[in-house]
Each structure stands twice: as structure tokens, then as C-alpha cells.
């Protein structure tokens, strides 16, 4: 598990820096201390500041209070366990099943990291020996197509694009091309959209329907890309995109920064869509499978 280790290390490094800034180093905060009310309060503050949200934070802290622990070190372990237990149901591996081509569609709000994640995912799949083809389904944003084409070049995989403004037509085309070339996996990019833009939510539903029409069973994965910097709105995003598309998984990006992505705790409680990958940088190999235990570890040190 070299990958997972370096991921955890990287997360920790980032988080350590945050803690310096925040001046609330959780491990220091907990170690060698008697458990008292102020300690619970500090714990609560740490979870809130990690974007866990009010409800999830209160639930976690009350479950710890019920344990009536006396020393800080035990409390720290209990906290990690509680988080890991909460997040474990989100852990799932991306499995490329027998369908040919296997179709993965990415969705999300503007700027969350969809296109970059596709570039990284293509690399990850190629390392597993899969042949990949990309569909440039963001027909709206300026130079979105060129951005994906650049990722195609980095990965040396074909990118199917059209001058047309119809994302469904692009995907339809890409599925045909994948069959013709025998590509095993098609990854479809889509334009960023906010759930308040109902017509765009309808548009992406249509893209999904087109995929199903072009190939029974497709898309096989519909992944929502979330930015770890996002606060409580991430939960609203999961609900809205899940309602519209039936999500099969999540990707959480930008964990190499100081944001901790604690909103996944709220997601785990309220709309537990599996979290397949985390993004830890802008390079091609900055994608890691999500490991609940490591994430919990990184969240609270």
C-alpha cells in the first residue's frame, strides 16, 4: 500500500500546516490530558472547523461523551474509531466489470475538478492495463475541450470531441468510437453546473439517457466530483445530483490544500454515496483510492 501511505503522509503534512495556523493541534490537544468539558469543546471546535457540520459534529461528540473516557489519549483513539466507523461504509473500489466499453460519467459544480480528475483517472486505469477513451462533454466552458485534449495527450489516449454544442451527441459519438477501437473504458467529461440551474440538471439527465440508449447498461458509473474546500453545500450537491442522476460514487478533490473535507462525515450520515477517490494535487498521479481509516486519521491527526 505504498500509494495509500504516501497519500496519508501528504494529507497529514497538509493538515499539520493547517493546525499551525489554527493553533489547535488535535493530538497535542488530547494527549496527556484529563478529559473535561473544555476538552470536549475543543474537540467540537476541531470537527466544526474541518467542515463536518453541526449535526454530524454533535452526533460524534455526544457518542464520545457517552463513553465517559478519562484520559485524552483514549479519547483521541475513540474519536478516530468513531470517524473511521462512520466513513467505512463509503469505502468502495472502482471495479471495471465486463461491460464493453465500460462507461464512467463525471458530474459536478463549476470548478470542482472534473476534467483534472478525468486526466488522473485515465492514468490510474492505464496503470491497471485498461485502454481508455475520453469524451469531451463540456461543450459550454471556454477551452474546456482543449483542456481535456491536453489531458488526452498526457495520457496518450484518444479524445472524442465535436464542434457541436450537444454533450449527448458527443458521448454517443464516443461510445461508437470506443466500440470501433475496442477501448475498454470511456470517461465522459461534463460541463460544471449548479443544482439551482434546473435546465442544466435536466440537460445532464438527458446525457445519461443518451448513454443508456447508445449502450444498454451505460453509464456504469456516475461520479460526482466534490471540492474539499466546499462547506456544507457539498451535502446539498450530493443530494441534488443523486436525485437527478442516481450517483454511484464520489471523488473528493484538492485535499492537498488545508481544507480537510470533513463534510464527508455529513454525507456519510445523510446521503452515503461511496467515495471512490481523493485528489491530492494537480499532477497526473495525484489520485488515490479513498481509505476510510486513513481519512479519519488525517482528519484528526
Amino acid at each position: 500500500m505504498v500509494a495509500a501511505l504516501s497519500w496519508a503522509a501528504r494529507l497529514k503534512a497538509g493538515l499539520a500546516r493547517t493546525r499551525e495556523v489554527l493553533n489547535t493541534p488535535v493530538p497535542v490537544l488530547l494527549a496527556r490530558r484529563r478529559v473535561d468539558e473544555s476538552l470536549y469543546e475543543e474537540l467540537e471546535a476541531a470537527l466544526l472547523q474541518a467542515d463536518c457540520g453541526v449535526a454530524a459534529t454533535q452526533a460524534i461528540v455526544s457518542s464520545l461523551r457517552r463513553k465517559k473516557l478519562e484520559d485524552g489519549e483514549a479519547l483521541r483513539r475513540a474519536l478516530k474509531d468513531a470517524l473511521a466507523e462512520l466513513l467505512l461504509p463509503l469505502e468502495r473500489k472502482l471495479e471495471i466489470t465486463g461491460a464493453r466499453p465500460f462507461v464512467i460519467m463525471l458530474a459536478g459544480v463549476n470548478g470542482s475538478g472534473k476534467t483534472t480528475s478525468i486526466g488522473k483517472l485515465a492514468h490510474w486505469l492505464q496503470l491497471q492495463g485498461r485502454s481508455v477513451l475520453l469524451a469531451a462533454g463540456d461543450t459550454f466552458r471556454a477551452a474546456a475541450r482543449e483542456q481535456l485534449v491536453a489531458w488526452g495527450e498526457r495520457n496518450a489516449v484518444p479524445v472524442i470531441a465535436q464542434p457541436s454544442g450537444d454533450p449527448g451527441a458527443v458521448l454517443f459519438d464516443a461510445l461508437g468510437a470506443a466500440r470501433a477501437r475496442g477501448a475498454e473504458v470511456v470517461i465522459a467529461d461534463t460541463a460544471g453546473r449548479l443544482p439551482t440551474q434546473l435546465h442544466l440538471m435536466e440537460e445532464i439527465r438527458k446525457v445519461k439517457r443518451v448513454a443508456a440508449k447508445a449502450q444498454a447498461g451505460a453509464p456504469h458509473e456516475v461520479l460526482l466530483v466534490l471540492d474539499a474546500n466546499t462547506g456544507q453545500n457539498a451535502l446539498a450537491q450530493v443530494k441534488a445530483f443523486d436525485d437527478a442522476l442516481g450517483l454511484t460514487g464520489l471523488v473528493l478533490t484538492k485535499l492537498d490544500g488545508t481544507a480537510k473535507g470533513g463534510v464527508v462525515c455529513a454525507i456519510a450520515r445523510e446521503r452515503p454515496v461511496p467515495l471512490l477517490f481523493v485528489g491530492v494535487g494537480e499532477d497526473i498521479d495525484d489520485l488515490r483510492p479513498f481509505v476510510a481509516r486513513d481519512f479519519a486519521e488525517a482528519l484528526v491527526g
Partner: protein
Amino acid sequence: MSGTSSVYHPMLDNLTARLAKIVKQIRGEARLTEANIQDALREVRVALLEADVALPVVKQFIEAVRASALGEEVIGSLTPGQALVGLVHRELARLMGGANVGLDLATQPPAVILMAGLQGSGKTTTAGKLAKLLAADKKKVALVSCDVYRPAAIEQLKAVAAQAGADFVESKSGENPVDIARRALEHAKTRYFDVLIVDTAGRLAIDEEMMREIAELHAVLKPVETLFIVDAMQGQDAVNVARAFDARLPLTGVILTKLDGDARGGVALSVRQVTGKPIKFAGVGEKLGGIEPFHPERMAARILGMGDILGLVEEAHARIDLDEAKRVADKLKRGRGFDLEDFKAQIAQMKKMGGVAALLDKLPAQLAGQISPAQLQDDRQIRRIEGIINSMTPAERADPSMLKASRKRRIAAGAGVPVQAVNQLLNQFEQMQKMMKMMKGGNMARMLRNMKGVLPGLR
């Protein structure tokens, strides 16, 4: 019809519920005291955290409000709860800057604007929006990209510049960003540009090398405006990021993007508190026209989760029949349906409030902006709806399902409208009824979202 009445009403319900919750414990007291504001303040704290205001900022804010609330007299017709919520709202608006502050480009041309922020926050798009605004103001504007890292970032800005009708200074991903900046500045000087807008790559505040780079860009460009571009959806980490950018760059202002979404946008308060810099604009759409001056008042209400409805109630609560609103809310709670009689009562209330146009001013910016101007003249439609409902018998109003073709014809004739108008009204009523049901378990954001699907003219 415009259906704007439904835009208004459920929010009133929502507010009534919220106020009732806070007001209950402290009704009938003439002064705000430590004891009687305790629960209300806890409520406000949760609201702010749920809106993603950073915890240290929340704490500071609550203490400030507590201090200024204590001993405050409850004036006039207000209840103590309303007085406190009013105070929270005013304080929030004040902290976010009071009045709007625009760009300050008063300098020897070219006035340079430097864009800075995290990855994906909206820098490139906002650069284009500003260029378009300034070009419309007869300024000669050039754009240049120093983003040599993200694939196709330069092409993106080039396309955006063309859309904005601004000049574009070429750059290449092989170049050094600082060299690009020098060259662009020279270009802008020799060609007498009024404004040069410099886009930069997104960067993490902890990326030492990249932060040094942008500090160097700043040193070379000596921008008159250094704008920090922030995503309205950002969470708690905003304080750390803002502090770090502010420490490395003399920021002159902030632009909050993606406010057309449904995030409550507490980040506005966090960033403002940490940097002390004015929030100058709000991004409200992906297209280049999607930019507005930032309104602290509206933002304060949005963070509190109340649209601008608070202000609406403050101004007009003498005129609205809160008992009537409460009657409908109670009815819903008891599980009884919302009927046409209620619908009519809502409309009557709306008229008291000054009609659609007056209400629009009070709606959350992102919603109001999406109502077509045609609807502003739609007060006539309201009268028409009233006419239709008036032509129904009480039994029909209570149970619209009994309205078959012959009854519809009678009603249409009575109201002097075509039968389609009756059908249309019934359709809208049905959808409104659905929304009212949802309200019961309801979440305002989801409701607004659905409402936009129902109402014509809302994008």
C-alpha cells in the same frame, strides 16, 4: 400568470416559523437580557455555522451581538425576538461592509488588476466579466494570462477576452509568468490601454513556491487592484486561505463567485473579517454578464437563511396579517391541504404588500435576478386569478378536484377569461400545493429550486 405569489408566500411561512421559534421564549419583555437572548443566540450560532461562517468568526460575532443587545430597549411594535433578529441582521450587514465599494482605478494608466485565488474559484471567468464591464464603460481593456500551468488556461482566457470584446495579450505555457507580466505591462503602456487585467493560475496558500510567484507578479505589476476571488461555496478553511493570501499580497478587494447557487455564502463574512477588505462584486452566473455589485444587506439575510425577507417583514409587518400566515401554517401542520381559498388569501396579502414589483426588491438576489422583466407588469394577472377564484363556489375552492369541464366553463365565463386560463391556474395551484407539502419537512433551498421549475420566466 407569474406565480410570483408562491415565490413569496412559502418563504413567509419559513420566516414565521423561524421567528416564532426564537420569539416564543422572550415575548412580552421590554428589554433584551442575558437570559432572554441565550436561546436565540444559540439559534443564530447554528444558522451561521450551517451557512459556513468560520467558527472563530462566529464566536466573535455572537459576542459582539450579545454585547450590543444587552439592555437594548425593545422599541415600538417589535417583539424582543424581532428586535434581536433585526440587530443580528444589521450587525452582519455592517460587518460585511455597509455600502457597496466599486473598483478604484484612479492611477496613471494602465491601471492593473491582478486576480488571485484558489484553483477553480472563478478567476478567469471573473477577469472576463470585469473586462466586459469596463469595456462597456468605454475603457480600453487588455487581458493577459500568467497561468502557464493548467492545461488550456491561456486558451480559455483568450476565448473569454473575445467574448468580452477586450484585447488579448498572447502568452505561452513555456514562458515564465513574471516575464509574461512584464511584457504585457509594456504592451499596455505603449498602446495606451486604460486597464490591464492579469489572470493567474489557481494556487494553494501553502504552496510556498507559487505564493512567492504571485508576490513577485505583484511587485512587477504594481496593480491598483489586487482582487481575491472566492467561491461562495467555500467552507471553514476560508479563514486560513484568506489570511495567507492577505499576508503575501496587499489585497484591495474580494469578489465572491457562484452566488447563483444555493450556498448560504458564510464565507463572505469569514473573508471580510480576516482581511478587512471590501467585497466588491458578486458573480451570479457563468456568462460574462453574470456579475453584480455586492450588497452586504442582501448577503446578511442570505447567510441567515432568510432571503431579504427579514427586511420585508421589518418594513411591512404592520401591513401583513401574521395571523393569517399562521393560520395557513397551522393548517398545513395538521395535515390538511392547502386549498384555493388559502391561495386567494395569499394573493390578497401580496397585494397589501405592494405587489410583485415591490416584493422583487426583497427577494434573494439570485432569485430576483432570474425573474423576467415581463413579470414585473404582472400585477394585472393577480387580479385575474382573484377573479377566477371568486367565480368558484366555496365547495369548489375547498376541493378543486370537482372542477370538471362544465364547471370550468361556468367559472371562465364568470371571470371573463378563456377556459385555458382556468386550467392554467389549476395547474399552478396543484404545483404550489405540492410545494407546500414539501415545505412541511422543508428546506428552503430545495423549495426554491423546485419553485424555479414551476414558475415561467425563472431560469
